């Protein structure tokens, strides 16, 4: 049986003192360099963030990127799951899409971004890119979960002539959910990183990626760091929210 609560059980806890240590290293390095353009100090970054946070475009950009990346992520999760269910039931279909899935997995994200840019507008580029990053992982995990479903339980279901719904709800869902859960938590971070990377290359107006791009053009490290901090915070908050949501789902599934 797979333990449901295996998330992050092996990772080292982040301690406050170690964070302070690295912040201090950062501060000292920036003072030694003496060039706030090349390496902004932590304080400068916070100040810059505070200035940005009271402007409307700041929040508009966050909304712009957030909606698209989450949109792509959700589509990827949905399609990945549906494809996996379909593929397990139709071997020929599974064989047919196997090369495609492998291709999506192995092609570097940058190549994808350029390729997709040729066909769709940069405005919705990040939707497509995060979708493409999420799809194969969710597909593979959910498919493996279904294939790993306890054969003994399936035999039990057949002897008791359980309905398709009961089999799905009480045997497949609880057994596949841990696979789905781990795919989701891996994919959210990935969707964020690849989505923002796509925006930096495609530079859609009013996106977080555009601000990062401008920071590069104007050698503006305070802006670069401030926006990076925003991305990290967004990604962490969303991951926490997602895990909480998945936990609620799990409780519901197990309550029966």
């Amino acid at each position: 049986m797979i333990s449901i609560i295996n998330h992050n059980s092996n990772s080292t806890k982040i301690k406050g003192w170690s964070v302070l240590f690295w912040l201090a290293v950062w501060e000292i390095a920036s003072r030694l360099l003496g060039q706030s353009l090349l390496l902004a100090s932590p304080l400068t970054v916070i100040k810059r963030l505070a200035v940005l946070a009271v402007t409307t475009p700041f929040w508009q950009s966050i909304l712009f990127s957030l909606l698209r990346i989450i949109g792509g992520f959700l589509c990827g999760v949905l399609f990945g799951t549906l494809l996996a269910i379909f593929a397990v039931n139709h071997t020929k279909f599974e064989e047919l899409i196997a090369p495609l899935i492998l291709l999506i997995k192995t092609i570097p994200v940058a190549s994808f971004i350029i390729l997709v840019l040729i066909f769709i507008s940069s405005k919705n580029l990040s939707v497509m890119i995060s979708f493409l990053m999420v799809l194969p992982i969710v597909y593979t995990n959910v498919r493996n979960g279904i294939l790993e479903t306890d054969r003994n339980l399936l035999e039990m279901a057949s002897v008791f002539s359980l309905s398709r719904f009961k089999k799905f709800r009480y045997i497949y869902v609880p057994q596949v959910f841990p696979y789905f859960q781990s795919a989701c938590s891996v994919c959210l971070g990935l969707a964020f990183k690849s989505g923002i990377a796509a925006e930096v290359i495609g530079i859609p107006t009013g996106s977080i990626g555009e601000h990062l791009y401008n920071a590069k053009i104007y050698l503006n490290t305070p802006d670069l760091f401030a926006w990076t901090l925003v991305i990290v915070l967004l990604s962490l908050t969303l991951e926490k929210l997602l895990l909480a949501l998945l936990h609620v789902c799990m409780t519901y599934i197990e309550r029966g």
Partner: protein
Amino acid sequence: MNDIISLNHISKSYQGQSVFSDLCLSIPKGEFTAITAPSGYGKTTLLRLLMELEKPDGGTITGLTGQKKSAVFQEDRLCENLSSLTNIRLTASKSDETHILTAMEQIGLYDCAKKKVSELSGGMKRRVAILRALLADYDILFLDEPFKGLDKDTKDLVIKYTGQHITGKTVIFTTHVHSEISALHVKNTISLPELSGH
């Protein structure tokens, strides 16, 4: 021939090893039949054929069409992440909660209805599996060494409860413990070694 399940000239082998060859057997419906044999004589294979989880290599089995089945397998085969109540309710003919809770108390399962199966002890899991089978809506009940792993007192309690709840049903029971057969007042006993010619 509607009142018997009949196995005609059944042969079955696994990886070249013959388990049965030309096995003929009649099991009366509506009665309690015990199949005894030491380990390795194909008791479980026979049950798997009857449960239609496997097809015989040769021969036919008649009398199973349209029969609702229920079973206690050698393993518990419970959904570990679900509560014991949900597990029982999954197959129960009456999903009424108080009915199930009363039954659970009768075989010594107190205060564990809402607990996940994975948190239960081996003996408790076994009893949940037995109750799931007994409360299901069935015509034929398969019991594959159902009382294995239960301690003496619990076993007596569970055997008594089982005996009260299977009257008039077709029950096929495998064991190699003879005291279980006498405790359950089994009418027919089939000894596999004699039949399969070992």
